[in-house]
């Protein structure tokens, strides 16, 4: 079973909740798919047993010994990545999408595609089972592809080790890395907070999960920060037929747990918030 924890808005407590879910098991695969900002390794300090690198999208490069500055490539590039700069054809690497069209149409064969920076796929053991995470190289694109690699690896490890449950910590937003994170999972948990921004982003996220027909749950974190908005979120979810899985109180000790490299359920197993998280996870598993 794959359970993905996501949130449209960042900083709602997604990773802290994923960490708590993961530490409720002795045998789990934890996949950190927030490849832009993978954080769970900080809490769980995994012992890395496997590391592989992957090359992201390629970038076009001009061989100036062949280039005649004809500008054909400029006409073909749809990404505004090639321009004349003082009479010389120049590729802006940041805008290059790696589509390779310029290198195909160049009459002088002066453009080749070069590999971009290397992103990393890491996996290993941690105190509650196995862990997989990705580290996107600085400035790298194609984070959706890295998310797919993390998930594939997590599934393989789960199979090899006879592990039932995979917890996925997802990225914020609703774009390609999020779509890659939730495609085909069994449960999606959307973490939100009771604010105008939180509610706006939640609606957009639920629109996406609905279009994928996924079993979706909502957790309202820091619900007591603004009970009016919490009520509105509950009302909205009821109206949409989405289960509110839990309402978590605002608790500074979540940060203390993080500073001590522990999940909240490890750090304070008897705290109210820990109890609610445990009940929430059981609800999903027994669904």
């Amino acid at each position: 079973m794959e359970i993905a924890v996501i949130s449209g808005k960042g900083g709602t407590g997604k990773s802290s909740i994923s960490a708590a879910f993961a530490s409720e098991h002795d045998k789990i695969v934890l996949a950190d798919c927030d490849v832009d900002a993978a954080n769970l390794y900080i809490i769980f300090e995994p012992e890395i047993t496997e590391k592989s690198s992957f090359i992201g999208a390629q970038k076009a490069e001009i061989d100036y010994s062949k280039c005649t500055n004809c500008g054909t490539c400029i006409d073909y590039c749809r990404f505004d990545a090639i321009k004349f700069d003082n009479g010389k054809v120049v590729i802006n690497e940041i805008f290059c999408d790696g589509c390779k069209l310029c290198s195909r149409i160049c009459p002088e064969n002066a453009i080749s595609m070069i590999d971009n920076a290397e992103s990393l796929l890491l996996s290993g053991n941690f105190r509650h089972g196995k862990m997989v995470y990705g580290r996107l190289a600085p400035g790298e694109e194609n984070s959706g592809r890295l998310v797919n690699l993390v998930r594939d690896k997590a599934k393989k490890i789960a199979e090899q080790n006879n592990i039932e449950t995979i917890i996925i910590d997802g990225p914020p937003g609703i774009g390609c890395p999020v779509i890659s994170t939730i495609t085909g999972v069994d449960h999606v948990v959307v973490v939100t907070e009771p604010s105008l921004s939180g509610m706006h982003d939640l609606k957009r996220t639920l629109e996406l999960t609905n279009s994928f027909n996924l079993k979706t749950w909502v957790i309202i974190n820091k619900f007591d920060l603004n009970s009016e908005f919490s009520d509105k979120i509950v009302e909205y979810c009821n109206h949409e037929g989405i289960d509110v899985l839990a309402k978590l109180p605002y608790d500074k000790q979540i940060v203390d747990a993080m500073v001590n490299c522990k999940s909240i359920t490890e750090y304070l197993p008897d705290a109210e918030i820990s109890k609610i998280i445990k009940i929430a996870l059981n609800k999903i598993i027994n669904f």
Partner: protein
Amino acid sequence: MEGKILTDKSLKIAIASGKGGTGKTLISTSMFYAIQEKYENSVLLDCDAEEPNSLLFFDASLKESLKVVQKVPVIDTDKCVYCGKCHDYCEYNAIFIIPPSRIIKVIEELCHGCGACSVACEYDAIIEKDTEVGRVNLFVTDNGMNLVEARMKSGVMSPVPVIKAAHKSTSDKDIVIMDSPPGTSCPFIQTVVEADYVILVTEPTPFGLSDLKQSVNTLKTMHKQYGVVINRAGLGDTKVYDYLKSENIELLAEIPFDKEIAILYSTGKIVAAHDDNLKALFMKIFESIYNSYGNSGNQR
């Protein structure tokens, strides 16, 4: 150039952070609010096209909505000979083909609109149609504040085309305050590439520090100027401060951890409109960046 000495400089500031929820929108809405009275031709640009929410903080009306489109191929199966060249040219696996069964399909979600397939086709079997990937919405408030949001359509893979279009729509403005998407991948890069200066917002926690490092590494490869604001100061630990010192990164300001700020913000209020100290602080940060990194007006 006559008259205005201060506003004859242009400046684009991006407010960004690796980690989400550190306070990007709080700072961009407040900074814009603080400076817009004095700096006339200014705009707040929300580049977080996946989850744009800066607009929620203003009582503004929509002035114009620009459709952002991308080209996707349409295959004329009467002309197609199933040679597979378009499939070979597509770097995004957006064309699915089984030649023996005469099946060919475009997977629009994967298409980046590069046009390679049209170039590849020797049988004139591919034409392209426009498909909407989002909107750039231009707003104005009663007292003349300019606000622009990039809003990606749900289900679309990449917000990049919408972000690029949003940049273009603000090219006539002198001062652009950009609310960046979180992370360090393409949406972040396409936002900060246009910035003269980047304010990285972080919080003093292990997660905040880890993500800050990733953002700093990315900005270094882009040769961007940047400084850091620590939000929720007082929480967590001091390792972020040690990092800034060791890397010699400027700490622009600290915003204390304060439940009142969080509550104000949660109800959709611009914090600087209710807190004079913070308003003054944002003005001060802006002006010091403006004085050091603003571009002389007539170069624009």
